[in-house]
C-alpha cells in the first residue's frame, strides 16, 4: 500500500479569524507503510504542527489528512508520540511510565488488571531492547537524559502503534548520546517495521535515519523539497563521514540556508 499516511493540500492555523496564525500552508505528502520519513526546516516552520495534524490532535483548516485511506477526524490510537522532553511522570517508576499507554488504549485497557504480568514482561522486553534492562524500578529522575529519552520512546511504542511521531526527540541531548540513540532508534524501527515521522532540525540526524527527508520553508510552512536519501539501509555511524552522506547534508543545508 503506497499511501499509508497522506496529506493533500493541507493548511493549518492556530486561532481563528484575522488573528489566526498560519502554521502550515498547502502541504502535500505521502508516507508509505514502514517508511522512515524526516521533516527538517528552520525553527517555527510548522514541523511540529504536521505532527499534530497526523495524530489528529489538531484539525486541518483546509485539505485532507488520511491514514490508511481513512480521513483523520480525531486522535488516532495507532500513533505513538515522543517529544524533546521525555515527559516521564516523576511519581511512576520507569516501568510504570512505559505501561501508561496500556492503561488508556483499548483493548489493553480492559485487560490491564488481568494481564498485568504479561504487560510488564512486554515492557521489560522493550526496555531491554533499548539497553535499559534493570532500570524498570528506577524513577525517571534517577536516569540520565539519554536514558529518559529511551524510556520515552519505549512508552511511545508499548501499545504497538503503526506510526511513531517523534518531535525533536534528541534535541536536548549531547552529541555522543544523540548518536547512540540514533542507532537505538534505527534498530527499533528495523525490528518493528513501524512507520516513523521524525521532526528535527539536525540535518545529519535526518539523513542518517530517514528514507525520505522533507524540507520545509519558514512560516507558514510549505514543503520545498522531497529528498530520497540514496544511501542503503541499515546505515552505520561510519556512513556519516562519507562523501555521499556529506553531499546530501550539504544539499539540504543549502536549501534551508537560502531561506534566511
Amino acid at each position, binding site marked *: 500500500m503506497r499511501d499509508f499516511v497522506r496529506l493533500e493540500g493541507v493548511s493549518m492555523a492556530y486561532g481563528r479569524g484575522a488573528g489566526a496564525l498560519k502554521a502550515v500552508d498547502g502541504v502535500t505528502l505521502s508516507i508509505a507503510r514502514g517508511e522512515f520519513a524526516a521533516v527538517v526546516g528552520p525553527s517555527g516552520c510548522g514541523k511540529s504542527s504536521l505532527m499534530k495534524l497526523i495524530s489528529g490532535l489538531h484539525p486541518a483548516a483546509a485539505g485532507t489528512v488520511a491514514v490508511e485511506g481513512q480521513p483523520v477526524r480525531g*486522535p488516532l490510537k495507532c500513533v*505513538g508520540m515522543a*517529544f524533546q522532553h521525555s*515527559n516521564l511522570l516523576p511519581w511512576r517508576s520507569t516501568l510504570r511510565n512505559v505501561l501508561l499507554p496500556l492503561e488508556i*488504549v483499548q483493548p489493553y485497557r480492559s485487560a490491564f488488571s488481568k494481564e498485568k504480568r504479561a504487560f510488564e514482561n512486554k515492557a521489560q522486553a522493550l526496555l531491554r531492547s533499548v539497553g535499559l534492562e534493570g532500570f524498570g524500578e528506577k524513577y525517571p529522575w534517577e536516569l540520565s537524559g539519554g536514558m529518559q529519552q529511551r524510556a520515552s520512546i519505549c512508552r*511511545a511504542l508499548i501499545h504497538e502503534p503503526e506510526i511513531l511521531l517523534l518531535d525533536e526527540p534528541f534535541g536536548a541531548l549531547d552529541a555522543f548520546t544523540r548518536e547512540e540513540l540514533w542507532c537505538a532508534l534505527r534498530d527499533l524501527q528495523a525490528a518493528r517495521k513501524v512507520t516513523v515521522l521524525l521532526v528535527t532540525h539536525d540535518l545529519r540526524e535526518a539523513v542518517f535515519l530517514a528514507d525520505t527527508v522533507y524540507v520545509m520553508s519558514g512560516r507558514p510552512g510549505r514543503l520545498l523539497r522531497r529528498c530520497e536519501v540514496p544511501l542503503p539501509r541499515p546505515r552505520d555511524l561510519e556512513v556519516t563521514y562519507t562523501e555521499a552522506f556529506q553531499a546530501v547534508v550539504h544539499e539540504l543545508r543549502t536549501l534551508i540556508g537560502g531561506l534566511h
Partner: protein
Amino acid sequence: MWTRTLAPAAFTLALFLAWEALCRALRIPLTILPSPSLVFSALWEYRAPIAANAVVTLWTTLAGFALATVFGLLLGIVVGWHRALYAAFYPVMVGFNSVPKVAVVPVLILWFGLGEVPAVITAFLISFFPIVVNVATGLATVEPELEDVLRALGASKLDVVRKVGIPRSMPYFFGSLKVAVTLAFVGAVVSETVGANRGLGKLMLDAQASFQVPIVFAGLLVLAFLGIVLYGATAAVEVRFTRWAFRGQAT
C-alpha cells in the same frame, strides 16, 4: 542531628530565657506580660480545665480541617478541570475568602446556636480556600505535551485528570494542607472567642475578663504547641505521600 533537633530546641529555650530575663529586668507588671515561669506555673495549676478545653478546640479544628480537605480537594478538581470553570469560580472564591471570618461567626451562632458547630464551620470556611487554589493550580498546569501524549492515545479528559492531573497536584495539595491546618486552628479559636461555651478561646476570654493574665498566656502557649504538632503531622504525611517531589533532598 544538630540541625534537626538541637538547633530548634536551643532557639526555643533561648527565647523563653530572654523573655524571662526581660520581665525581671524591666519589672514588667504581671497584668501586661507575665514571665514564662509564671505562665508555666499557671499552666500546671489549671492543667485540668486547660486540657479539657484544649481537647474541644482540637476536635473542632480537626473536624473543620477534615471537611475542608475533602471539600477543597473536590472543588479544586472541578475548578482545575477547565479554564472556563477556573475563570468562573475564581472571583467568587477570592471574594469569599476576603470576608473576615470573625464577621461570619455571629451569623453562624444565630443559625446553629452556641456550641461547637460554629467553631467547626469557621475552621472549615477559613481553611478550604488554599486547598482549592493549590489543587486547581496543580491541575491547570499540566504540561501540554504530556496532555498531547495521552490525548493522542484517545484518553478522555477524565483519564488525563486521573493519570496525570491528580497525582501531579498532590505536592500542591499536601503543601496547602500545612497552611490549611494552621488556618483551621485560627478559625476554631476565633469562633470560640466570639461566642462559645467551651474551648481554649472561651477559656482565655474568661481568664482575661478576670485579669488572670498568666492563664491567658498559658492558653496561648498551648495553642502554639498544638499548632506545631498539627503542622508537623501534616508535613510528615506530605513527605510520606509525595516522596517523589522531595527528590534530591537527602534524608
